[in-house]
């Protein structure tokens, strides 16, 4: 791994810079650190920082830009007519990359010498055979264009790697030298280092922004690409979801409405389970339960929140499904056809959401001032009357917020519906039928096939965008309600 070696070398250079900077500063102060502006370690750190940060920055930047640059150059080598029908340049390029990778690996194994790997006039069949012998995955026919393109790709990548190594090393050495040169006794090393650290802290805090930008950009670009291939009006208003499996586009019907219906229906069932149980549990725990009971029951309920969703998915598919089927299936009432149904997934999701609703509501009920309860008791109300007529109305906005947050969790939940809800998109009111959701379809459209150019795959990004906007909207709305409520008692 050359990148790892480069990293280690840069680290070594920076370490040398550290000692030289420290040494030079001490020497300039005549060996007495009291004459320095800062502690000796800051002079060393200054040199270390000036060497390592720009070097790694350049390395990362180079690695990000290099593929884009090389791709751009190599794409020009592929003539328009070489791209087969039903394929596109992106597919050919991934072929080129695979072949270039294969060439390098074949050279490593010794089945191919460097000369042949570079030779543009090399025998096509021979190279293909050698690649196969080396255990490289290549398609049956590498065309002459692909071979030449991948050879160009490979040599450009190699040149670029060498250039990167040189540039990074120069930057590291220059940084270390600069930091060392600066190290005189009057240099304010601590201030410089602290400014650098502050910059790093700000950069770390910005990762959250970068993530959001990354999510939004990756969703937007692919969604736009999707709408270029598939009419937006059909996506939003078509009542049918039937992606074609073989062809690319054309026969597919990709209407989001059945998926949205399934998502909302299953979430509704889940909330129907979770909200009453969670709310009553919260009321009981905060108003009735003795401290000992509370200290046992609350953590027990919260265990449910710590269990991974894949477990609930399996529980839905293999436990809830068969139980429901034995009651409502052909042996029982005859309403249910298979284990996977809206009810199966909804029940499992409801169980998952109970602790979510209960702990949020618990906090909110506890935040209602005791004086309001005391006032109610003073007028002769019973405990339940106080709760129903005083505490709950006061806590209502917060509880609504909690339910909205739970709904947002339910809409975004994936594993339970992938395993428990089924694969068929349906617009139906029957909770015993299998339906599918937005999240389940994102998974099924994006797994397996690595071709991102077809509308069948790109639709997942449009679905993801819808999901993102829905959950974000619910969260913002919920937080708004909760925040507004909190101000009332302060």
């Amino acid at each position, binding site marked *: *791994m050359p990148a790892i070696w480069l990293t280690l070398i840069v680290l070594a250079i920076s370490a040398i810079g550290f000692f030289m900077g420290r040494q030079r500063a001490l020497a300039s102060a005549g060996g007495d650190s009291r004459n320095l502006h800062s502690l000796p370690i800051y002079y060393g750190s200054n040199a270390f920082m000036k060497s390592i940060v720009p070097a790694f920055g350049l390395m990362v930047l180079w690695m990000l830009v290099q593929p884009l640059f090389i791709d751009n150059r190599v794409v020009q080598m592929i003539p328009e007519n070489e791209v087969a029908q039903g394929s596109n340049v992106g597919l050919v390029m991934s072929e080129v990359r695979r072949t270039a990778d294969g060439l390098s690996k074949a050279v490593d194994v010794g089945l191919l010498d460097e000369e042949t790997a570079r030779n543009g006039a090399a025998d096509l069949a021979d190279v293909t055979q050698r690649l196969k012998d080396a255990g490289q995955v290549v398609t049956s026919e590498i065309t002459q264009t692909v071979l030449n393109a991948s050879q160009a790709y490979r040599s450009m990548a190699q040149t670029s790697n060498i250039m990167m190594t040189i540039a990074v090393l120069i930057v590291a050495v220059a940084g270390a030298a600069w930091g060392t040169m600066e190290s005189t006794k009057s240099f304010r090393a601590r201030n410089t280092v602290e400014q650098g650290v502050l910059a790093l802290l700000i950069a770390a805090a910005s990762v959250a922004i970068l993530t959001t930008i990354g999510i939004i950009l990756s969703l937007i670009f692919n969604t736009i690409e999707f709408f270029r291939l598939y009419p937006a009006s059909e996506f939003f208003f078509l009542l049918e979801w039937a992606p074609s499996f073989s062809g690319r586009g054309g026969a597919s019907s990709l209407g989001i409405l059945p998926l949205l219906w399934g998502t909302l229906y299953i979430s509704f069932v889940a909330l129907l389970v979770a909200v009453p149980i969670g709310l009553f549990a919260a009321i009981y725990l905060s108003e009735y339960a003795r401290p000992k009971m509370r200290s046992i029951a609350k953590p*027990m309920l919260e265990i449910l929140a710590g269990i991974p969703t*894949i477990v609930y998915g*399996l529980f839905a598919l293999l436990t809830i499904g068969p139980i429901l089927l034995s009651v409502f299936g052909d042996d029982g009432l005859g309403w249910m056809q298979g284990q996977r149904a809206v009810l199966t997934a909804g029940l499992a999701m409801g169980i998952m959401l109970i*602790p979510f609703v209960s702990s949020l509501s618990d906090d909110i009920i506890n935040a209602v001032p005791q004086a309001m309860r005391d006032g109610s008791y003073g007028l002769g109300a019973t405990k339940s009357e106080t709760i129903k007529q005083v505490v709950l109305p006061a806590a209502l906005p917060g509880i609504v917020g909690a339910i909205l947050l739970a709904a947002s969790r339910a*809409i975004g939940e994936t594993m339970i519906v*992938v395993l428990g809800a089924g694969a068929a998109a349906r617009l139906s009111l029957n909770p015993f039928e299998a339906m599918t959701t937005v999240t389940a379809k994102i998974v099924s459209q994006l797994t397996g096939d690595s071709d991102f150019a077809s509308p069948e795959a790109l639709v997942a990004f449009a679905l993801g965008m819808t999901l993102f906007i829905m959950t974000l909207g619910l969260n913002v709305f919920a937080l708004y309600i909760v925040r507004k409520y909190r101000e009332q008692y302060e």
Partner: protein
Amino acid sequence: MTDAAMTPDSAHPSKSLTHADERTKKRNAAERRFHAYGIGAICTGMFFLIALLAAILSSGLPAFRQAVVEVPFTLTQEQYDEAEKALLKTGKYTEYFVTSLTDAMESEGVEIEFDKKAIERLLGKVGGDLRAYYRENEDQLGTPVSFELAAASRVDRYLKGTFKREDLQSGNRFFMPEDFNLIDAMREAGLIKQVFNWNFLTGVDTGVDNPGGAGIGASVLGSFFMMLVVLVLSLPIGVAASIYLEEFAPKNRFTDFIEVNISNLAAVPSIVFGILGLAVFIQFAHLPQSAPLVGGLVLTLMTLPTIIISTRASLKAVPPSIRDAALGVGASKMQAVFHHVLPLAAPGILTGTIIGLAQALGETAPLLLIGMVGFVARYPDTFVEGFIEPNSAVPAQIYNWAARSDAVFTEKAWGGIIVLLLFLITMNTIAVILRRRFERRW
């Protein structure tokens, strides 16, 4: 003086403290009902928890047991030479095995007719195993050796009661109806015993033709490498971001924007992070698909908000007097934070990080999108390859098994869940212990 006051029992007959009137009874009944609803809700929650745990344990524990057939076996030098000269060498060994198995059963008073084929159906390639053993250990020739041979998955399931005689419509090359009799006979002779299935913990995933041999080992390693990436990236970045936001950030638009971003990211569905990983790390940056490195990066982005939120809480819990004292003796702000506040907040940060890691360990959906569901049956060769070679992760492996129709894989999926939950329980216990031990009330 009115008459009404003299006859209290006529106008308001029960205005008495000792006798409740209709309305009071109703109100008290409503009170009791409400109380019962609360208890009912708690009990339902508990019931679901117990049902879930019972389902996991009852379906998952059999995955850790494996039926083995233990047969005393002696091979003489002559038999060895004869077998090595034979055309079908392993076949010869199987024949010897059939003989000694018959003898072993007869000595226990059980008699049954069976052939080589039946043995291969029930115990796999016995001959090959025996031959390999004796070629390795020629000095064992002539002395009795006790062989433990793992039974095929159908034998296992028959013994566990999940595969019954009536389930088998007709025989195939994997199982014939008369094999049930042979299993019963071996059980009667006391040759079958249950041992702990180490292969499940150390093995790799197998194809659909050998469900019994599938193990979770390789995917545990994949999860381990992913958690390593998450730990190495999310802890420093999360702590640095929290320090900035809690200690240095001025109150301005930029800071507000970061805060809003973090609280929103904490609520973004995990599948959206999977889409991000697919688009940015695989589509754009061309990192290898299915690699633990990519999985770790995606999970890092997902865990960061959790870690930042808990780290900020523990930084906030350090009283301002500590900072003031440090500043008072001449430390710079940076020194006060790094030398005094951070060490005091460390236990809380560690606890939050462990809980964040536990969350990331159980996450499945984003891993499906970056391709960690493929059938990968090998351990990485080197440490670096562990990060970049395609691998699976425990939850992805569980999903993979659950999606296959074979009942043996279902059992493995439940078993995998036990493994996953054990890891989660351990991590959470460590977090709780850390908090109990080092928590400081100021």
